[in-house]
């Protein structure tokens, strides 16, 4: 509201001022909630990769990004060099399988960065400063979540893009590759949203230093280990339905199953969802995970005093 804020200066009579030290007040345009939220989103996104932070904060995310890209680079190299030799006519590892293969790196990234974005504001009470700006509580939560989701998406999708470009250069059929790649990108968006939502929720409840990292890792790693154990046993003993239901309980297997159902991607788990009913259950579970995490976060921040 430029008109309001510049009024005291125009009239020359300071209103409601306890001490007038004679400093000139800011009389320029004041941006509203939208630009504040956008700037906050960009800062959060840059911070997850350590940009604008110390060199030590850059090390972990950049190393993880490098490690994510390395296998993709090798796969592309093999594809380009040995396409005719090995008689390959598609990607060596499917786009939808790649996040599952590298789930350890993605988990470490999310676990390391979610507390950096979420817990620190609560621990050092910087959140009061943010909430003092014209940005509402709900917007603060959603923007923080958006930063984390986009950062995770970049980590997951960067190697997929590399593989896609390499595949095109290696003369794989462009139409089919584009379709599969776009399906995998949708999967990457949903996976990033699920992981970021869960990690942010856990981080918002564990303010203590270091503990949030451990808690996120425990949730992601233990759920994935348990699910793969159950699926392995289920397929070995002929109880496929149990394995399919178990797949709902880890973000990685959930999103992979979703991609199998929606885009007919090659399955990376022993028991992908079989049939429309189970596929729809995967869709519902994905929506519930994302929306539930957002709802939980909003509830949690209602109790934070500003």
């Amino acid at each position, binding site marked *: 509201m430029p008109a309001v804020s510049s009024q005291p200066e125009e009239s020359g009579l300071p209103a409601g001022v306890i001490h007038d030290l004679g400093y000139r007040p800011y009389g320029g345009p004041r941006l509203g909630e939208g630009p504040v939220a956008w700037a906050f989103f960009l800062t959060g996104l840059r911070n997850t990769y350590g940009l604008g932070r*110390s060199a*030590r*904060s850059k090390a*972990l995310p950049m190393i993880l990004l490098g490690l994510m890209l390395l296998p993709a680079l090798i796969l592309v190299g093999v594809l380009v060099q040995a396409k005719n030799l090995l008689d390959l006519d598609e990607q060596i590892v499917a786009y939808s399988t790649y996040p599952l293969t590298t789930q*350890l790196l993605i988990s*470490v990234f999310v*676990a*390391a960065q979610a507390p950096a974005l979420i817990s620190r504001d609560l621990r050092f009470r910087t959140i009061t400063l943010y909430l003092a700006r014209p940005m509402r509580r709900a917007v603060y939560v959603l923007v923080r979540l958006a930063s984390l989701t986009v950062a995770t998406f970049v980590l997951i999708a960067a190697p997929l893009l590399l593989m896609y470009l390499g595949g095109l250069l290696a003369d794989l059929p462009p139409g089919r590759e584009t379709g599969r790649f776009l399906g995998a990108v949708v999967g990457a968006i949903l996976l990033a949203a699920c992981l970021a939502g869960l990690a942010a929720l856990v981080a918002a*409840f*564990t303010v*203590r*230093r*270091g*503990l949030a*990292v*451990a*808690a996120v*890792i*425990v949730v992601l*790693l*233990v759920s994935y*280990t*348990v699910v793969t*154990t*159950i699926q*392995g*046993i*289920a397929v*070995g*003993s002929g*109880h496929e339905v*149990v394995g399919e239901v178990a797949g709902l309980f880890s973000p990685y297997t959930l999103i992979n199953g979703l991609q199998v159902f929606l885009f007919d991607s090659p399955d990376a788990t022993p028991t992908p969802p079989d049939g429309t009913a189970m596929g729809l259950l995967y869709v519902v579970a994905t929506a519930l995970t994302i929306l539930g995490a957002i709802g939980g976060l909003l509830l949690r921040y209602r109790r934070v005093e500003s």
Partner: protein
Amino acid sequence: MRPQTISRTIVRLGAQSIFGRWRGALLFVLPVVLIGLSILVRGLIGHEEMGARHALDGLGLTVIVPLVALLATSGLLAPEIDDGSISYLLAKPISRHTIVASKLVVAAGCVLAFAAVPVLIAALILRPSYALGFALGALLGGLAYCSLFAFLSVLTRHAVVVGLIYLLVWEGLLGGLLDGVRWLSVTRWSAAVVQEIADISLVDDLPLWYAVPALAVVVVGGAWVTGRRLRGFNLTGDE
């Protein structure tokens, strides 16, 4: 006055700091998951060896035990170093080794209660003949991890992250890919103890005469090095 090796006050305070707030909840979740999985597997395939191997080795020994040790140990020393209150403890006329030993007693209790006993129960559910071996392996492995993580938490302020990366990359990723890692891997040493007692094959070519002394060296050596490090300890700021 003769120097005591365990200070009961520190043990009591340590137990309180572990079960304060959310850390305790996480510690309770892990055994519940393990036992729940065991009941499910038992319902699916009964007493078969494959299920017991997946649940007890794949989840229990390689995931639950190190995580319980990490959570317990990181709740003992790191928060005090973090908020600076360790200086009050260090200012007391107590040997630094006594402090470390007392803290590790609490961590060992946690490993016993939240890792070894749940593994024992899970093994009894899945395959009773494995019970003793896995419980002992879990206990010894957990103790070694506690010493290791205690040392990490006086070495760096990012002990939890470093510990997790060590677990995931060295014990998990590289341990699965490279066979040579077994000579320097706590999980595989404890697996060697398990297979000696429980008639199950977990690691190839890792003799017991190497595994048990290696575990003992890590437990005792880790505790001693931690105490030594605490003697010349200085508080540093964040980043």
